């Protein structure tokens, strides 16, 4: 059964460094999303992406964040200059219809 994959599973970085989190959505899906979940807290919407452009973004998704779909399979989230408070689990999700979303296993980002 097709699934969303994410790499790496855990990323440790120094404050101020750039990180790129990678996702491979399910192949026939058209809608892509990034969420984050700070440990023990709720899941927070970051951004949605459709037709090669951002369709919606939250207040969290400021100028330090960007997304790209550089080829037909990958969907990346870049954080330009990480802060301590960026430490969280980052989930990628994809959807064929824009309704039911399928989540990847997540990348745990630790900023030191």
């Amino acid at each position, binding site marked *: 059964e097709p699934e969303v994959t994410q790499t790496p599973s855990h990323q440790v970085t120094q404050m101020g460094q750039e990180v790129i989190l990678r996702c491979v959505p399910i192949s026939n899906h058209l809608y892509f999303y990034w969420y984050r979940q700070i440990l023990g807290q709720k*899941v927070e919407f970051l951004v949605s992406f459709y037709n090669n452009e951002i369709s919606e973004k939250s207040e969290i998704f400021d100028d330090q964040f960007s997304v790209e779909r550089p080829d037909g399979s990958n969907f990346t989230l870049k954080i330009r200059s990480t802060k301590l408070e960026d430490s969280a689990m980052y989930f990628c999700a994809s959807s064929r219809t824009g309704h039911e979303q399928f989540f990847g296993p997540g990348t745990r980002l630790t900023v030191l």
Partner: protein
Amino acid sequence: ELKVEQNPLFLSMQEGKNYTIYCNYSTTSDRLYWYRQDPGKSLESLFVLLSNGAVKQEGRLMASLDTKARLSTLHITAAVHDLSATYFCAVDNPRDDKIIFGKGTRLHILP
């Protein structure tokens, strides 16, 4: 701004009992989702509810949506230990297509 509230946030119950988790939201929407998350794991889609009066059932779980009351329920019938997890509802705001999650209900089922 769309707000999504779940209650209870924590529920400890005995196996074999029935219980209901509630999800209220603050603005009009007819798209609501339920997810399950096991500790340290990703989110698993349980139900997609896309219209008023929608009711879906899978095993011991049943979800319903009342868009007029802005309320969804997740009902657990004859709970078993394997259902222990955190359950999130999420609402799609039709005004901006942002998806807002509730804080989650941590369900602990005692054998």
